[in-house]
């Protein structure tokens, strides 16, 4: 019996050795280990073995089976490996062939700039609000300390619909709506479309976008204005950016300022981009005029605040070095695809 098993084993191993394909190895498994295989046949022949011998023979059969299985499994594993290797070799591709891209569309550069600015201020606790583009004179001018005979109200700058209704010339009008709601403190930014009666050319458009900012709370100072806008400039233009505040005049703020940032091309050394000045004008700002607070029902003895206005297109043109504002409204796909 033992010899027979040895013989079976030797024959099985020989056949495994001789197999050159997975199918042949499977045949070996069926022939030797399967239900009708030779080892099974030996087990079936156990009835002829003496009862006391049976456990021994059984053990011997199982050992033989295990040994064959082990060699067989190992051979199958190696064979599979060889087959896979061969397959991989045939599947080599030219990785430099063109990519298959999903043609994803592109955001408008002004919107990219807008979302950047929104992200920064939302992070600082500001709420984004909107106001009407067709606006009443009161909100666009009077409530912002620009009375009836102020030069800024000249028809040449403002598109009028009727004597009292106009296309807003500044997002500052949204300040007034927000203050009138009477909910304090206020930290808001108001992006939106504004209109000025300027002919279309490389640097002018009759319609463009601004973002207005307004903070009203107790004890707000000019120092807070400086700190907030300096932080904004570093976030938007890079952490090395420095800011400079120059006195200016706006009817609805006092004190007022314009903010310059160090040129983000040359870092302030002066280059063609900043016309050698090292600085680029970015926004206007100031402490909200107490009369503006009063008109909107806020007590300037208790509250103070600051406001600022940024031109979105200006930021987009500067950041992306776009040299002609008309490109922003032409919607040429070759332009849009670059953003």
């Amino acid at each position, binding site marked *: 019996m033992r010899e027979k098993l040895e013989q079976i084993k030797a024959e099985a191993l020989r056949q495994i050795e001789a197999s050159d394909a997975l199918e042949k190895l499977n045949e070996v498994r069926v022939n030797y280990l399967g239900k009708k295989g030779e080892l099974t046949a030996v087990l079936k022949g156990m009835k002829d073995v003496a009862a006391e011998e049976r456990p021994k023979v059984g053990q011997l059969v199982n050992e033989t089976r295990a040994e064959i299985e082990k060699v067989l499994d190992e051979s199958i594993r190696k064979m599979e490996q060889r087959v896979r290797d061969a397959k991989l070799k045939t599947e080599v591709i030219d990785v430099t062939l063109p990519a298959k891209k999903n043609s994803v569309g*592109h955001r408008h550069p002004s*919107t990219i700039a807008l979302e950047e600015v929104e992200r920064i201020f939302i992070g600082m606790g500001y709420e984004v609000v909107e106001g009407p583009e067709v606006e009443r004179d009161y909100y666009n001018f009077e409530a912002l300390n620009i009375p009836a005979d102020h030069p800024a109200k000249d028809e040449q700058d403002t598109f009028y619909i009727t004597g009292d209704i106009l296309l807003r010339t500044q997002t500052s009008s949204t300040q007034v709506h927000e203050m009138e709601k009477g909910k304090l403190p206020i930290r808001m930014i108001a992006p939106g479309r504004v209109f000025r009666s300027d002919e279309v050319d490389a640097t002018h458009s009759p319609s463009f976008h601004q973002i207005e900012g307004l903070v009203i709370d107790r004890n707000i100072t000019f120092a807070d204005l400086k*700190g907030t806008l300096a932080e904004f400039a570093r976030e938007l233009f890079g952490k090395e950016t420095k800011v400079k505040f120059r006195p200016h005049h706006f009817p609805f703020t006092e004190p007022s300022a314009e903010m310059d940032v160090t040129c983000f091309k040359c870092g302030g050394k002066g280059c063609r981009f900043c016309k050698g000045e090292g600085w680029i004008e970015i926004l206007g700002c100031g402490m909200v005029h107490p009369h503006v607070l009063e008109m909107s029902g806020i007590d300037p003895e208790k509250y103070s605040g600051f406001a600022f206005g940024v031109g979105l297109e200006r930021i987009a043109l500067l950041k992306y070095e776009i040299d002609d504002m008309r490109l922003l409204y032409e919607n*040429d796909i070759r332009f849009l695809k670059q953003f």
Partner: protein
Amino acid sequence: MNTALSWIKAYVPDLDCTDQEYMDAMTLSGTKVEGYSRRDHNLEKIVVGQIEKIERHPDADKLIVCQVNIGSEVIQIVTGAPNVKEGDKVPVVLDGGKVAGGHDGGPLPEEGIRIRAGKLRGVPSNGMMCSIEELGSDRMMYPEAPEMGIYIFEEDVETGSDAIEALGLHDTVFEYEVTSNRVDCYSVIGIAREAAATFRKPFYPPQVVVTGNGGNVEEYISVEVEDEELCPRYCARVCTNIQIGPSPKWMQRRLAASGIRPINNLVDITNYVMEEFGQPMHAYDLDTIAGHKIIVRRAKDGDVFRTLDGQERNLDADVLMICDAEKEVGIAGIMGGENSMITDEVKTVLFEAASFNGANIRKSAKRVGLRTDASGKFEKGLDPHNAEAAINRACQLIEELGCGEVVNGMVDVCGKLRTETELPFEPDQYNKLLGTDVSREEMLEIFNMIEVRYDADADKLIIPTFRQDLLRQCDMAEEVARFYGYDKIPSTLPNGEATTGKLPFKLRIEQKARDIAEYCGFSQGMCYSFESPKVFDKLLLAADDPARRAISIANPLGEDFSVMRTVSLNGMLLSLATNYNRRNKDVRLYELGNIYIPKDLPLTELPDERMQFTLGMYGEGDFFTMKGVIEEFFESIGLHKKILYDPNAGKNFLHPGRQANVIYEGCILGYLGEVHPEVCDNYDLKTRAYVAVLDMPSVIPHATFDRKYEGIAKYPAVMRDISMVVPRQIMVGQIEEVIAQRGGKILEDYQLFDIYEGNQIREGYKSVAYSITFRAKDRTLEEADITAAMKKILNGLEGMGIELRS
């Protein structure tokens, strides 16, 4: 405003800084300097030379050979200039020196022109005598310079001395941008005062002395102001025995540097005082003033008046006029009349220095179509106190320059003049607003420099009348900040109550719209809010289409920008056409922008501003591509229910058989379709184009970012395919409606997998095939469930005239 630094230094003599330092410091203290130009730029080694001898050039008819004494030696210079003679003193550039430009006065070369000794037609020449153009200037600055040829000094200048100095060219002209609230800074004195305060140097304004050589002004002129509101003050003085001649060089140079052409002593004095004090003045020939009487009154509607530039001007009752006893002699604050203008024969002059209502002057200037230096200043609203100082200054100059004799006294018609504002001195409040810790002493020092006086007894600040912008404490805080230095104010962050930063729901939905459009290959465009009323015809809108009721702009930039858009398609079609005509392939664009729907016309209420999500495309893709974008968007904002498409959208601008309204929960949220070929033609778009417009205010009420997880199915699904022969006019939407209604609770999904018209199908029919999926949440379905559901569906379909194919 342009002013020579030398003029500023006349009143701030201790000013000592480079041009760049001056520009930076003035800008940081609030007097913005736009730029500056040095008048001696590229002028090197130029001295005063005296021509001792002139001889003919031996070999050239048009050249002469001059022996020129340059102080240290006599040098030989060959020139072609025709205007010099022996004894003339001229500017001479020496060997190795530089001049700014060519003799023809063209644009100045950046690096100037280097002059070297050489030979002209064989004769050595060791320098060059200069024309005023070669010195980078012109005959406006130097009216005494000859039209062609070398500049010849009229006055006695030292031979060999610096010619640039003698010409007053060691100077810099600064260009200031004055903000509208600083009326006082539209003057040399105002800027000099700011400069003195900025650099903390003493300020010596010109001392105005009231002069008079006898007589009494009342005997010469009387003044009557009919409209005090438009003319709060009118000052008049008279000068006699006028001797017209050139004004002194220093005055000419200062005026020319400010961009004002010197004319004669009388005109120059009025211009000089206007620059110096910021107060426009007018000089009349008193002999032309009928009745020796001035009346200030409004014009009458329809009046016509000839101004001294010879132009006829149309007037109306809002225009203020200066008149004599018989006629108008000038438009107040804008320009005098031809009938009273100063000529060289003038003997007696009437000076006017008045104060007019700024808003009225601005309106009038626009009305008569004439903006002058004077009106530009009056528009700002001048301090009436300034008028008196200015007129006395002018008379003082008349006398000092020997231009005539001044009659004693001034006619002064003057309503209630503004008084000095008083404000309590509140240093703590200034610091609190600024976030600073500036000492009270420093504040007072700053106020003192800008002539704000401090009354220590009353602890009050007294604001001079020329500072009309200082009205409240915040204005005083700004003065402190400006001269303390904006750069020295600390940078802090607000530390009040914490607030939550947020983007409102509407804007979050718009952000989602952008994201989805871009995922689907659409790029964002931007279009104008206003357009031409012709757009309605281009879009084939019916005559009674409500979209034709648009808001008109009263003062548009032209017809193309004259109405507020009521449909968003025009901008999109223009953009597609631009791309198409530039041969860009496969273009997909979207836009988010408002349309403006009036509630009434003419407007009394603000219009309804409706955000439109507009998509447009041509090239690859079709109607169903567009439909896919809408569905992706709806899914992303939580519109999970069935979207219906009604082909009866009624849009004239879309293909009649390829358009649909988008309906959700019974509401029309927008439409989509193929652009009508005629509309494509109107836009010069020679390809099929597809558009979709979603009305965001209609979409948003259905939108939500809330999501609820529904368990992933545990029990198996069962699928059934049905194949049908369907009358052609039945839309698959109708089939789907039957499947959805009749499939029961176990209906999970249905998908169209084949649609076919043609050979094997008889005329007027199409073949349609659906795969229907059933599943129960709580059990494995049994055959009977499915058979029952399928039977209901099939019955429904057969009821519509649909045949089932086996």
